[in-house]
């Protein structure tokens, strides 16, 4: 039994860092991200296995290759640096055999990263420990859904980040069978063309050229390894970035993103962007990707990573036309105007458009859905959303239904709760009949508590997610889709938007308040909450009280150990009515106290895709 085995991932562009974070092991290191999945897994157990990753993103790329880590009695996981928003790497144990043998576990913060040392009474699978540590770090068990994928060929590590349920094989196959089932549903091979034949006829194969290779045919988004949305995402987006526009430049053996003479981020030749790199770029206004001699698909990969993180990317027309980016992302990139980045609001609008396009085209889940569909596999439906819309004002029903009708990019059903009136009443019946939505009506007497009505509505809902909306607020057409996206990348049990924009009806003024967004925080607007069905049922639903049911739900989620995420507020305008029409806890002054921008009349930002009342004026708080 040899003494120590070391595997590292993500240190390609930072070789010196590896020695710094791991003083007690000098190598040799097995480079996991460059490993060939076809190598036979080690059969001999070692005394200690050290797995060093530069960032959580790198750790997720190592997870599929867990089988290449030998069994060891001591497993050490080193994360050189974690982004500020990541949770602590407390292992979330499953039923795996390893943790039964646990003798000692130490988790220590080392500078900006973590050092986890676990000792067991016998050799355990290193890969299992690794994936369980990652569950803790990113909040819950999050790996990708069906199908089960086989990986082959060098460079396949980036294709299935965070998925421990992959089958590893060599380029020539075959895939070892599982118990009573084929080893996988689809094999992804990274191989130079022409590819060698594949022996197993039962399992379809998708071949991908290495990133740096010249393409045979036309480029296509599906040829790019996906963006790992669990780590490369808008979390931590800074609305008031004050920095300059940074530039992507080539350097020996990779790329850098520089601002003047400062090198902010160093990227490897494969163009892999990590969460730590993104965190370093949060202060720049944008990144200019102009004349970089990145060959093959590498440039597109860097751009998709930056866009998915919500960092505005400035590109030349020729670069925008790259077919590997996909049509949506190209369109979004075409709207980026460097001059507009100086305005905080414009910059955020640009950022939201970019992240939407990038995450929906290049995120790991859409990417694998695409690949699976093109390989002819049947897929489960995307999770549907049930919208809980309760109202006690029948004149608001048409308006509220109209707000939901314009939602796009989701499969939604409406549960319409009528509080104190019936669906057969004049204006209501017509509005329901005119709507193209799938509407289920739940009626309640005027005296019934709101919480009770909402619970009854939830009981008839069929979606995997429940979204609560208010009857008098305005919603942008991507409101539900953006909430789902935020749920996907944050992994939070409850997701909501910030009530940044408020229309103050009594004084005919729209204000934008400064509320930090894209972060884990328990304050979200009640009319924008999206809660996972599973969590909702764990909590037992809303409290059956007449008021503040939203706040109470948030408190219960917190108490149940769930995470709450607040995404951007550009899809939502809260209507603050006259005090005589509504009971408000906050008077108008409270909204005026902390506004950052102000518009006369009802103003919508561009993402709302609605017409504002025509008053050119706009006001920004003095700095």
């Amino acid at each position, binding site marked *: 039994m040899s003494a120590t085995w070391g595997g590292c991932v993500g240190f390609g562009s930072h070789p010196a860092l590896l020695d710094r974070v791991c003083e007690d092991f000098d190598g040799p290191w097995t480079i996991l991200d460059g490993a060939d999945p076809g190598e036979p897994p080690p059969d001999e157990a070692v005394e200690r296995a050290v797995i060093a990753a530069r960032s959580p993103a790198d750790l997720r790329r190592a997870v599929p290759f867990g089988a290449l880590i030998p069994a060891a009695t001591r497993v050490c996981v080193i994360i050189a640096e974690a982004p500020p928003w990541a949770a602590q790497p407390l292992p979330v144990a499953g039923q795996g055999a390893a943790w039964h043998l646990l003798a000692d576990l130490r988790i220590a913060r080392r500078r900006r990263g973590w050092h986890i040392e676990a000792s067991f009474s016998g050799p355990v699978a290193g890969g299992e420990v690794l994936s369980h540590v990652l569950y803790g770090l990113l909040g819950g068990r999050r790996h990708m859904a069906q199908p089960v994928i086989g990986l082959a060929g060098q460079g396949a590590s980036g294709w299935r980040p965070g998925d421990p349920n992959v089958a590893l094989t060599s380029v020539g196959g075959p895939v070892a069978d599982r118990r009573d089932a084929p080893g996988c549903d689809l094999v992804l091979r990274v191989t130079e063309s022409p590819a060698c034949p594949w022996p197993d006829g039962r399992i379809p194969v998708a071949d991908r050229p290495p990133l740096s290779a010249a393409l045979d045919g036309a480029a296509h988004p599906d040829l790019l390894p996906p963006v790992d949305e669990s780590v490369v995402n808008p979390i931590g987006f800074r609305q008031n970035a004050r920095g300059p526009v940074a530039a992507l430049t080539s350097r020996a053996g990779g790329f850098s993103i520089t601002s003047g003479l400062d090198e902010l981020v160093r990227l490897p030749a494969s163009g892999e962007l990590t969460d730590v790199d993104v965190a370093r770029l949060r202060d720049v206004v944008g990144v200019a990707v102009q004349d970089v001699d990145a060959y093959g698909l590498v440039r597109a990969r860097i751009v998709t990573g930056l866009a998915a993180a919500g960092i505005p990317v400035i590109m030349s027309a020729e670069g925008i036309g790259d077919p590997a980016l996909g049509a949506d992302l190209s369109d979004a990139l075409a709207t980026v105007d460097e001059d507009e980045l100086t305005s905080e609001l414009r910059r955020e609008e640009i950022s939201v458009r970019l992240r939407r396009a990038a995450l929906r085209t290049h995120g790991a889940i859409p990417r694998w859905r695409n690949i699976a569909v093109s390989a002819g596999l049947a897929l489960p439906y995307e999770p549907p959303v049930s919208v809980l819309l309760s109202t006690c004002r029948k004149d608001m029903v048409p308006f509220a239904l109209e707000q939901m009708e314009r939602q796009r990019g989701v499969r939604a059903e409406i549960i319409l709760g009528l509080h104190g009136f019936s669906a057969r009443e004049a204006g209501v019946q017509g509005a329901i009949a005119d709507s193209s939505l799938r509407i289920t009506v739940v009626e309640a007497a005027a005296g019934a508590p709101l919480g009770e009505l909402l619970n009854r509505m939830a009981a008839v809902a069929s979606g995997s997610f429940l979204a609560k909306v208010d009857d008098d607020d305005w919603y942008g057409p991507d409101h539900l889709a953006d909430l789902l996206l935020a749920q996907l990348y944050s992994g939070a049990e409850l997701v909501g938007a910030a009530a940044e924009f408020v229309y*103050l009806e*009594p*004084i005919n*003024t729209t*204000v934008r308040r400064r509320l930090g967004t894209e972060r884990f925080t328990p304050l979200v607007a009640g009319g924008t909450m999206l809660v996972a069905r599973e969590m909702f049922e764990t909590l037992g639903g809303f409290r059956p009280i007449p008021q503040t049911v939203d706040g109470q739900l948030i408190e219960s989620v917190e108490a149940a150990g769930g995470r709450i995420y607040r995404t951007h507020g550009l899809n939502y305008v809260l209507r603050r009515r*006259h*005090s*005589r029409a509504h009971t408000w806890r906050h*008077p*108008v*002054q409270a909204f*005026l*106290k902390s506004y950052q921008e*102000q518009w*006369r009349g009802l103003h919508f930002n561009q993402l709302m895709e609605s017409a504002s009342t025509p*008053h*050119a*004026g706009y*006001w920004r708080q*003095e700095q």
Partner: protein
Amino acid sequence: MTSPTRQPRIPANDHGVIEGVPALGEWTPRLSVSVVIPTSGSRGTLPLALAGLAAQTYPRHLLEVIVVDDGEQPMLRLPEIRPERTRLIRPKDGRWGKPHACNLGASTAEGDVVHWLDDDLVLFPDHVEAQMRWHHLADYLVVLGHPRSVQPDPSELSPNEVLAAAEAGAVAKLFHEEDSTPQWTEKRWNRTSDLRTAGVDAFSVHVGATSSLPAALFRAAGGMDESLMLGEDTELGYRLAQAGAVFVPDRAARAWHLGRSTVVGREPEVKRHNWPYLGERVPTFRWLRKTPGRGYRVPYVEVVVDARGASLEEVRATVDGALGSWTPDVSVRITGPWSRLGDGRRAPLDDPDLDLRLISAGYEGDARVTFTEDLPASCFPIPFRFHCPAGWVPGQDALGRLIAFADRNALGVLSLALEERDEVVHARLERTAALSRARLVADPGEDLDDVVHEVFGTLWDVGEKWGVVRSESATTVSPETLQAELEKCRARSLVLQDRANRWRRQATRGHATRRRWRHASRRVARVLMRRVARPVMRRVARPVGLRMPWAAPGRGRL
């Protein structure tokens, strides 16, 4: 005056938003202009000025000239060379002075536009046309010409020469450009992209040597103040601004100004002369109103308090708060049904109008307080009006801070939400200039605040932030408290300064120590190398034939 279909809405003084300013010679004039030349005749330049006017490109049937003879001796007749329609008038009853001459000229004038012209200006042929093109685009513009001063020999130039030069298009060649000096206002023009960014202060460069404005606007602003012998144009500019005017300098409206201007050379004397007058009349010249606690002819802000339905205590708190403001030039207007208060027999304590009566009795003697039944639409020429609901008190610094904020951001209306009942109770600061302009450009039935928002800005904020609070929580700071506070701050700053100095000393001492140690260590290393390492190495290396490392070429000193 026939106005264009819709008046352009110019924000602050940014006349750049006016579209379709025609090039000279490429448009058809419609409006008539009366050039008013007040002259004392003493300098003998009037014939030259009239000769310059005689050859204007502006259509003759739309151009009349009124020479107002303001000299000690009446002028016998007009010079030979002059525009066709030139009249000579003389003030009656021994009245004199340039402002009176201007008012007289303007009242005689038949043109839609009045163009002031000094008698020592020789206009370029397209001067009047250049100014007039603006008046066809909006009827609240004050257009400023662009003269340059030269020092001619009086005998050098004759009216004939001027006319000949004008007809030959050679007025520019009458003098050398490089010998001429620009008007003092030109620096401001340059700094503010021709006053486009000058904001609410644009009026301060209003110079009447050659400028034009719609006659109606001149009347609305109340004409010239005849008590001013100098600086009358600045004061008029101030009132025009309050009436909503926008000031447009046109560099194409060129002219030669013969002789030195009065301001140049005797600047301190001119200022000494003007400042007492302007200080009384132009409240926005804050540097002329530094004395605390005294009143001025035109206050800075008019505070309006409505006494209807309010108690004596509430009104008193608000009015006293306003009068006690650190902005001293405040006037207060209390609105209420004052005519209801008769002298009929009444029970003093059970009077139904008791509070009204007490309020009116309580401010009888303060000249700064007036009682009004119906609030006039505008407080012109006072630059600001502050509506404050009774029972709410502006803090001592509130008015000053609010106005400074409104000026910094060119706000027309600043509303402060105070409390929310069925409606939002609010205070409101209004800029007279903004409301006047909004009235000039508003379409019938349009919400005036919407228009104000287009020409200046409107903003909502909270009263609390600006120190407008309920009377119960209002506090005033006495000078003694302020003095004590100041002393405390001074003492604290001394302590902090001392501490900072100590830290700085320590920090530099640390530097020095580190430097000393580094030098010492290098010295020790050198000594060790020389005394120990080299001899030892020599002894060891020589027999073996090794090269000495310190003898290697290109190595620096160790």
